[in-house]
């Protein structure tokens, strides 16, 4: 079984859901983010948040996946002050919805004053509601942005055990782990980094507080990145228990601190959910642990070679 802790499923097709379920992914987390272009009204933001707590959760259930989300104002849109103010007003309404496992994605994009302001305000909200935080580390000036994200979180008195720093690479992982935060890695196809790097990272740092996700969205990305990475780790000689931690137990432990994601959700869901929301994972039916087979898609050869860390 796998948990993919970073997926923008509203951008994905039903084929993706089918392939994910078949590959053994039982749960996915949809962080609130921008949509490839900035929203210009709070109304569209409300509808977006309702969509990721509503229809997308339903849709995932049709394919046997449980769907969770995080709620937050992302750093890019934090730069539109009028929008940001209005979104901050409505966030508390969504933060306690069922299946909301964190406040996020938060952090910095260009590290502007407005980004800083709304990052801090949302850290306070997470503290008040005792929810974990998902931090999106910036694509540019990444190391400095990551260090600053952590410093500010500590300054606001957040327990690093409740904070996931996402989109790590070799330049950031040491300091993230040293400070006691969770370190997540987004595995994308076709990036400049080598495909064995996740394996190397695990060989160097072990599996404590480390996990990986696909960050699949509307761009070139692979919703099967987590099961494929598990397979890569296996081929790279990583012990099975470490693979399980990185692809299942750790994201569950990190976001499970919200009380909103639990193994029982897919292994033994409440009767009311079985009647309405969750069609069950057919892979899991029959009392078997899911078999994870890596089947290259026709004509593509072994696409494990395409997997890279951001």
């Amino acid at each position, binding site marked *: 079984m796998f948990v993919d802790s970073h997926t923008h499923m509203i951008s994905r097709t039903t084929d993706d859901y089918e392939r994910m379920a078949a590959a053994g992914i039982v749960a996915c987390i949809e962080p609130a983010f921008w949509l490839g272009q900035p929203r210009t009204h709070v109304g569209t933001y409300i509808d977006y948040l309702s969509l990721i707590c509503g229809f997308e959760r*339903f849709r995932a259930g049709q394919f046997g996946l449980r769907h969770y989300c995080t709620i937050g104002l992302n750093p890019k849109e934090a730069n539109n002050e009028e929008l940001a103010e209005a979104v901050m007003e409505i966030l508390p309404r969504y*933060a*306690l919805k069922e299946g909301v496992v964190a406040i996020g994605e938060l952090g910095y994009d260009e590290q502007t004053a407005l980004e800083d302001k709304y990052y801090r305000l949302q850290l306070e909200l997470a503290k008040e509601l005792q929810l974990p935080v998902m931090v999106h580390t910036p694509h540019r000036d990444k190391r400095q942005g990551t260090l600053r994200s952590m410093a500010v979180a500590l300054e606001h008195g957040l327990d690093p055990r409740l904070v996931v720093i996402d989109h790590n690479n070799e330049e950031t992982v040491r300091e993230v782990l040293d400070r006691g935060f969770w370190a997540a890695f987004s595995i994308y196809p076709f990036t400049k980094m080598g495909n064995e790097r996740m394996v190397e990272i695990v060989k160097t740092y072990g599996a404590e507080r480390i996990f990986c996700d696909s960050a699949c969205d509307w761009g070139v990305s692979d919703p099967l990145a987590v099961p494929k990475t598990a397979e890569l780790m296996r081929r790279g000689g990583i012990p099975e228990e470490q693979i399980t931690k990185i692809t299942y137990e750790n994201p569950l432990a990190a976001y499970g601190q919200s009380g909103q994601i639990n193994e029982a959700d897919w292994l033994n869901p409440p009767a*009311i959910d079985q009647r*309405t929301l969750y069609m069950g994972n057919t892979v899991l039916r029959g009392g078997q642990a899911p078999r994870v087979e890596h089947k290259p898609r026709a004509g593509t050869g072994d696409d494990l070679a395409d997997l890279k860390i951001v």
Partner: protein
Amino acid sequence: MENGVPTLIAVLRTWVARRLSADARRWFDEQIAKLSSAPIEKDIYLALGYATRRLGKHDLDLSREDLAAAQAARPGWDPSDWSVDQASRVAFVLASFDGDDAKFQARIEQLFRTADIGELITFYRALPLYPAPKRHVARAREGARSGMQPIFEAVAHRNPYPREQFDENAWNHMVLKALFIGSKLDPIQGLDERANPRLMRMLCDYAHERWAAARPVSPELWRCVGRYADDAALADLARVLETGGLAERQAAALALTASTSARAKSLLAGVPELARAAAAGKPGWTALSATAQ
């Protein structure tokens, strides 16, 4: 109805309290007390937000006596498959009613607009319990338009609201949509009493679409056809009697017993065994619904 709100809350509380620990019960009662006395909006969404966390999602598992109490408090109300969180959230929403219908409607609308999927199901199921029922027709129709089957069913199934408030067009589309999305008809309240000629025509046209696509037709479809069956519909029923599977043929016979036309009688005479069973109400629409896919 307004006088009924405290009764409804009391009934809901009885059911919920049985399933809760002393701590959870205390929290529930605190929320009701807070929401009953000039609540601010934040109190409401915090109570709703924490409901699943503090109270869980167990089934209420209501007894026959409980369901009778529901009927007494609000005729037609059928909470047989409600859960603790649903009953609690409905109690919270009702507790915030202070006699001002417009204010209550605005609040409900706001709650619907920012609801998660579990809340949507809950708020739609509770449609028959809201004061000033006519105010919520547009909202109910929105739910019946939903592409999410559990939301649609929260309005359509085991809910007296559509039978009482939907106009003919809304009603007909709800019934047709149920078939269209593979939802059952039998749990819809008022199915027989609200049958009408226009619905009969819509359903027969739909059956023809399905036949053209070589796709199965639910036996339940014929339930709303029989009483107002015209010549074309009777020809369709004759076709089902000739070519349908057992459940479809039983359904056609049941449908024909609801028609007063001579043609219906002669069709039934052609299938004496089915006609005899149908006249005795067998196997009955509920049984046919249970065996439908």
